């Protein structure tokens, strides 16, 4: 995978995928079992391993299926079916490559969705993705963002937009997230550097994260460093 690393936008302590900001270390925990371990234990008849599998992968599989189906109800049905198929396989002849459990889960979920979609096409059922006012994705899950009502999301985004330093930063967000324009084209059109573009997105995401947390937990806003 080719790509250049942009300098100057440090992700450390910036609210991304990071270590705790106060410098403390989380308590030492034993690492979770590997996917291959889970697969082997399930093949050996370990019922607790099956529960671990579902608990560990359930949220991710459901997110993927909601994204594919745009229907919370259908995603739930396919989510159950995915684990049924996968567990049946793991209990039976197992996987040729047990460490590729994640890939097998993904492929199974996508195939079940594809099959369901084909049934819909054969029945002549229209995909509701054609609805001009359809939500971008399905009903909420269980994360903080999932708990926000749609109208509340819009209110918080409007607050974010109001706090951005310039109209150009707002245009970057609209055009990148809604206009489907790629970074290179946006930088060219708006005559900004790649580094500036990255900074705008990064700061907007960080700011939005804090606004959502305040909304849910009522903490006073901390100034961004």
């Amino acid at each position: 995978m080719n790509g250049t690393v942009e300098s100057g936008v440090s992700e450390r302590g910036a609210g991304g995928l990071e270590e705790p900001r106060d410098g403390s270390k989380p308590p030492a925990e034993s690492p979770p079992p590997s996917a291959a371990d889970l697969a082997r234990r399930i093949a050996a008849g370990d019922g607790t391993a099956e529960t671990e599998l579902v608990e560990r992968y359930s949220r991710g599989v459901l997110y993927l299926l909601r994204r594919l189906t745009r229907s919370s109800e259908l995603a739930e049905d396919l989510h159950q079916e995915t684990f049924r198929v996968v567990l049946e396989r793991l209990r039976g002849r197992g996987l040729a490559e047990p460490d590729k459990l994640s890939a097998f889960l993904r492929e199974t979920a996508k195939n079940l969705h594809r099959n369901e979609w084909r049934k819909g096409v054969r029945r002549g059922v229209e995909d509701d993705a054609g609805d001009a006012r359809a939500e971008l994705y399905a009903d909420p899950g269980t994360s903080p963002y999932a708990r926000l009502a749609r109208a509340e999301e819009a209110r918080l985004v409007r607050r974010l937009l109001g706090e951005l330093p310039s109209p150009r930063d707002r245009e970057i967000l609209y055009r990148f997230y809604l206009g489907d324009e790629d970074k290179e084209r946006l930088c060219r059109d708006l005559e900004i550097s790649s580094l500036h573009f990255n900074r705008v997105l990064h700061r907007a995401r960080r700011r939005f994260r804090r606004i959502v947390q305040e909304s849910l937990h009522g903490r006073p806003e901390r100034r961004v460093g």
Partner: protein
Amino acid sequence: MEHRWIEEHRIIERYVTGRLTADEEERFEEHYLDCPECLDRLEEADALRRGLARTAAEDAARSGPAAPARRRGGLGSLGGLRGPRLAAAAVVAAALLAGLATPTLLLQRRVGELETALDDALRPRAGTPVLRLGPERSTGGGAPDAPPSRRLTLDGDGWAVLSLDAPRTADGRAAGVFRVTLEGPAGQSVWSDGSVVPDARGRVIVALPFRLLEPGVQTIRLEPDPTSGDSTGSPAVYRFDVRRPER
């Protein structure tokens, strides 16, 4: 896929806006199935995108019902959008056109370009070639297979429909759930799809765009799909020759 790489290549933003390559998407989806941190970031990006769409809609509603003028442009700026990605972009475009006016003229032009591409992809076509194929019987013993007897001559752009006689079980049924793989003349895998079932006549119907078919012998493999939980089908191979008219 490491988190630092995910941050540096803006994988999460590109994923929620449908901009990852197929390989990146596959790798990232396999990663986040087991990554609560990435799932949090995905839901954050989704919420941000939904909120932006709603604020744009609210602003449009407040500013009046004027419909954005359609700007028809070329397809060159689409950068290879196709299939589901094109359809997803068209959903956003359709939502934007249905009264949710965009803040800038450049967005409106982009919507027009996407409409044009979608119209082109969905237009009806006549003269579609249809080829019926039965499973090959191998000569065995290491001898090279005879050239395929069926041939498609393709000219220009379009689609070809293949009607494959599905392999039968011992009791004569065309049963099973299959993965279909198209291999080109050099044996390279060109396209693959799973969860395919024979129709009521025992045929698997495949529609292929001409652009996937290089001149030479093509091979289609039907294999039982391991992710389906159904192992009743038998594997089968089909071959046909593709020619292009000489200019």
